[in-house]
Each structure stands twice: as C-alpha cells, then as structure tokens.
C-alpha cells in the first residue's frame, strides 16, 4: 500500500493554477524526492498532503485514508521556512511540538535527538540564541520527535554546512531504516540522486517526471559525454552534433544530437587537445532538470 496517493489534484489561488491534475503514489518505506523550479507547486503539494491546504478537486489519501479534516498525527512536517518560538527554550519547544503530535515518550525522544544531533548543550538555551544551522536541526527534531510514520521535509538541507547536512542526511536514512516514509523537496540535484528511491519533478503545476533515477535517465538515453581535457571549454566550440555544452570548470558536459556517434566526437577532440578523460553517460538529474525547466525549455513552452 502506498503511504501517499494523490489523484488528479488541482489547486488554484485566485487565477493562478498552483497544481494541475497531479497524480502520484509514494510507496511506503521509500525516500521520495520532490524537485522543481521555484514556484512550480512543490510546497503547495506538500501542504495539501499535510491537510493545511485543501485541493479544489481530486483526492489525497495518506495511509489509505482521506485526509480532509482528519488528524495528521502520523505525519511529521518541516516547512521550508523554519517556525520556532524564539523566546522558548529548545527543550520546551521540542516537547511542545512532540506533545502536539500526541507523541509517545516525547521527553526521552527529545533528549535522544538533541544528543544525536549534538545539541545537548543547547537544550536549556532559548531558541533565539541558536545559529541558523542549529535552529534548522532543532526544527528537524521537532518534525521527527513524535516518531511519525510519514516525514515531509521541505528543503531540509538549504543553508546547512556540509557537516550538518550530512547529519540530517544520516538521520533521514535512519528514519527510513526504521520504517518511515520520507518525502523531501530539494533544489540540490546531487542530494536527490544520492538519497532518493524515487524522484518526482513538478513544473508549472504539472508532473513532468516520476520514477526511479535509473528509469528517468533511461527516458533520455546515453546522450551525454563528460570530458576533461587540457583545452577545457574553449576547445569544445563548434563541435558538430553537440546541442549543448555545460561547463563545470574542470569538467564539461556535452549533450549530443540524437543520431550523433560519441566516438566521432572523441576523434575530433583528440585532434584538438589532449583528452584526460572521456565518459559516455546518461544525463545527470541536474541536466534533466535544466532540459525541462531551463531557459531553452521555457522559451519553447512560452513560444
């Protein structure tokens, strides 16, 4: 059974269509990544799953139950912008949020998580004294302290340094290992590639990708070449059959036209410069994202 089922959901704000005909099934126990440009409808979808917004039409079921007006104690939700009572002590605010979810052993769980994320020394400090990263970790604890079966995280890694990002990432995977279903939205494609069992992309309110990373990449074939060369990006200009060059500095990614043979490209490159590495690959999630939502795609849609 799916943890979340969304069927033909539509949500509008005035004349703006935020989500349009969205259908989705999030398997239990999976880590499901929501990606999409800003304003594409990710947060609105998450809020509808949380029963904060009601869809105009369509249905949303969580653990098989229609949610409208129902309790959401089985779901932990961390919104994109952190919301903590600044003048409360860290431990008190966590206990409040845990109790509000009717959580079990909230006091023990609060202390366990504070230690787990190295915030034990800050337990009796006021929230307003915390750094942004610390506050984000506290917000994460507030989300999971009641041991929800479904965890929804809206941009959980934004603004975190690598150490804290790793700590949250490990905690998320630990929740999954304990049987929780995790949905999170992110703009970091590498995080989505590494962590998610399934990836869903929404663009202008509509679903444009949904599936495992391998399945998504398979849709686009092996039309990508990653090259490292002495000449760098400068020597790639004017290569026949290359639709687009993405320059990552020391590495360049080339997207080939449909019928172009990669080995022909390799021969041309060798003639121009010394090639250090040459990899025929499937497109990265980043590249797929840009193909769907980048300026060229927007021009195509708008044009």
């Amino acid at each position, binding site marked *: 059974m799916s943890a979340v089922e969304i069927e033909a959901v539509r949500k509008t704000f005035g004349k703006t269509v935020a989500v349009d005909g969205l259908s989705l099934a999030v398997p239990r126990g999976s880590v499901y990544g929501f990606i999409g440009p800003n304003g594409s409808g990710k947060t609105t979808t998450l809020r509808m799953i949380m029963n904060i917004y009601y869809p105009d039409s369509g249905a949303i079921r969580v653990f098989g139950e229609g949610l409208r007006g129902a309790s959401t104690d089985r779901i932990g939700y961390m919104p994109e912008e952190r*919301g903590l009572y600044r003048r409360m002590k860290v431990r008190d605010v966590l206990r409040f949020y845990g109790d509000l979810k009717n959580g079990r052993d909230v006091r023990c769980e609060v202390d366990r998580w504070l230690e787990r994320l190295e915030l034990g020394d800050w337990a009796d400090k006021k929230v307003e004294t915390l750094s942004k990263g610390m506050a984000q970790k506290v917000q994460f604890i507030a989300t999971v302290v009641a041991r929800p079966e479904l965890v929804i995280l809206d941009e959980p890694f934004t603004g975190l340094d690598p150490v804290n990002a790793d700590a949250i990432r490990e905690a998320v995977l630990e929740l999954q290992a304990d049987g929780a279903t995790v949905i999170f939205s992110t703009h970091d494609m590498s995080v989505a590639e590494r962590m998610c069992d399934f990836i869903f992309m929404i663009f202008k309110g509509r679903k444009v990708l949904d599936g495992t990373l391998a399945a998504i990449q398979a849709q686009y074939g092996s039309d990508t070449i990653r090259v490292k060369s002495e000449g760098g990006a400068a020597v790639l200009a004017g290569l026949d059959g290359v639709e687009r060059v993405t320059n990552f500095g020391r590495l360049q990614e080339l997207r080939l036209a449909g019928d172009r043979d990669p080995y022909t490209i390799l021969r041309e490159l060798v003639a121009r410069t010394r090639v250090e590495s040459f990899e025929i690959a499937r497109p990265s999630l980043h590249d797929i994202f840009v193909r769907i939502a980048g300026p060229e795609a927007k021009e195509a849609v708008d044009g």
Partner: protein
Amino acid sequence: MDKVRRIAQREYLATVRTKGFIIGLVVAPVVFGGSALAMVLFGDQVDTRDRVIAVVDRSGLVAEAVVAAAEARNAVVVYDGETGEKVRPALVIAVVEPDDRDPDGQRLELSNRVRDRRLHAFVEVGPGVLRPREDTAAARIRYYAKSAAMDDLRSWVERPINGRLRELRLAAAGVEPAEHGDMFDWVGAAPTGLVVRDPETGAIEQPRSSSEAEAIIAPLVMPMLMLLVIMWGAVPLLNAVMEEKSQRIAEVVLGSAKPFEFMLGKVLGGVAVSLTAATVYIIAGVLVIRNMGLAEYIPYHVLPWFFVYTLLAIVMLGAIYAAFGSICNDPSEAQSLMLPAMLPVMIPMFVLVPVLKEPESTFSTALSLFPLFTPILMLIRQTVLESLPVWQPLLGVLGMVAFAALAVWTGGRVFRVAILMQGTPANLGNLVRWALRG
C-alpha cells in the same frame, strides 16, 4: 480537545512565566489608577498665591459687597487655624471705575493685565443688573479670565453679587433684610447612601454619607479592572498571531492541529491569562480595601458576574483579535488594525460618565445589552444599581454567549484562510470576504 489544551497551556505559560507579566500586574493598575491616585496624593496641592480680581461695577450697587465677601472669606479659609500655614489663596478685589466713554478699550486694557498676570480675572457687572427682566443685555455679569469656564472663582463671585441684589430688591419691596437674618440661609442636601438591615444582627444600620468621589470612583474600579484583564488576555492575541504567522510558526503548528484548534487554543490561553490577572487583582483589591476599613464599598454581588463577563469577553474579543492578527503580515499592519480592534473596548469607556449618571436610562440599558459592550457597561450598571432587574444581566450574558459563538466561528473561518496567506494586504475588505467565504 487535547491539542487545544496544549496550545492554550503553552500560550498561558509563555505569558505568565515572563517577568513582563509579573511586573505588568503591578504596574498596570498603577498606570490605570494613576489619575485617581494623583487626586488622592495631590488633592491638597493648591496654588496659594493671592488672586487679584478687578470688579467693574457699572450698576454701582455690588462692588462693595464683593469686597466685603472676599474679606470675610479671606479671614476664614486662607490660613489653617491650627498651624497658621497658608492653605488657600487670598482674594484681593480691586474695584475699577467704569469707563463709560470707551468700555471696549477698558476691557482690552484689563484683559492685557490678566495676560500679564497682574490680574487673575475681572468681572464686569451690567448697569441693569438689579432688574434683569427689564433689560437682559444690560443685566449681564461677565467674568473674564484665561480659563473662565473652568475657574471656580467665577461661581464664587456670583454669590455676593446676587446676595446684594436680593437685599436691594427686598428693600425696595419694603422688607428689611436685617430684620430677617435667615432670609438667605441655604440648606444643602447631604449625599447619603441607602439604609440597610444588618443581616447578622437584624438592626437597621445608619447609612453613610457619600461623597461625589465615592460615587464616581468606586463604580469605576470594576470596569477599569475589566479593561485591564481584556488588555492582558485578548489584545495581545493580535500581535501574537501576527508574529506566529510572520515567523512561520503557524505553518508548523498547523502541521499538527487544525486551524480552529489553533485559534481556540490561543483564545483559551488568553482567557486563562485574564482570569489569572483578574483573580490576583480581585483578591489583592479586596484585601487592600478591607484593610482600609472600606469593606462596605466592595460590590461583592457583582464579583461572580465579573468573572463570567471576563471569560466571555476574552472569548469574544480574543477570537476577533486572533482573526485580525491572522490577516496581518508585519507589525505595521498590526498597528494599523489596532485602532478598529480596540473600538469595542474604547466605546464603553467613552460613555462611562453618562451611563454612570443615568444607569437606568434607555441609552444605558440598550448599550449595555450590546454584547461587545456588556462586560464593561452592564458591570458598571450592576455596581451602581442594586435594583437592576436580573433579566438584564442574564440577557446580556445570553447575548455574549451567542456573540462569542459567532465570533469564534467567523474568526475561525478568517484564521484558516489568512494564517498562511503571505503578502495579501490586511484590510477590512479582505477580513469580511474571508469571513463570508471561509
């Protein structure tokens, strides 16, 4: 209900655990009662500098009487009989010859002397003052001063002038005032409380004489207390909800509780804060007043009503303020909505005096039955009127219960829509639209 209780509990503890609450409990009544306290503390602070009053007597009949009356007054009230200390200003009457050729010039010159503080005021007595029915214009007495309407000496100066005129009129009618010494004696009516029977002894107790201050100040204490507890429990909800919205706390809470539960929890937290403040004030007030030996002025019969009104007032106003707060995006918007939000509290304060003076009038009765005004106005009427028909407060409570239900329901609809809506301007149009559409 468990979530409502938890939200209310957090709201309550977040307020009462602060130093601001404890300090405010003490400071607020001092600020509110400041004027009354000042009256008590500084009531005997009188400017004892002599007052020079010029009298322009165009009738030629009364100037000497004014001079004599001032001398008589000065001999009695200016110095304290025991200490010899000067406690009142002496009145110095300067009789000025009327300038019949240029009366306006004379008035200007005297006015300038008042402006220069060489005179306190000047009185002009019309030439026909003895027979006012014959020529009203010529019979006028004018008192010229900087604050003539508020000046107590204006009414003082009327007495010797009119006393002298009455003597003259009687003499003209053939009655010799000197032979009838009590002709102008004045007997006042002493303000006195009602007679009561002591419930323990059964004896009829002698009523106390009451002062104007008692008549005004005693009934004002209860509505002032009501205003205070509303300020504690309901008004802060507007800013609190606005903060929770702008700091995105609302979205987190709404991940666990329904909007209605969230709002109701906050309102009930406000109720608990108010009842705490009310209990502290009532207990402290009763103890202080009893210690002062003024226990009979404590309106015990309205205290239960006070708590009922407090509870319903905070629910009514709290729901309204929470809804107002939910449509605000920042403190400046909250500030601009504060004035209309405060009107239900301020309007009863504006009409306190007429209600106090005529508590049984149709005006007072009708206003006190309007649910938003009932807590303050019905309370004041119950304090001053022992014979208020019981159906009136009961109807008032019924109206408040109905209005509270309506306010919570409507406030909940607005709250649900507005609490997550960013950037939409906070105005009454949106408020009404969301209230109607939900």
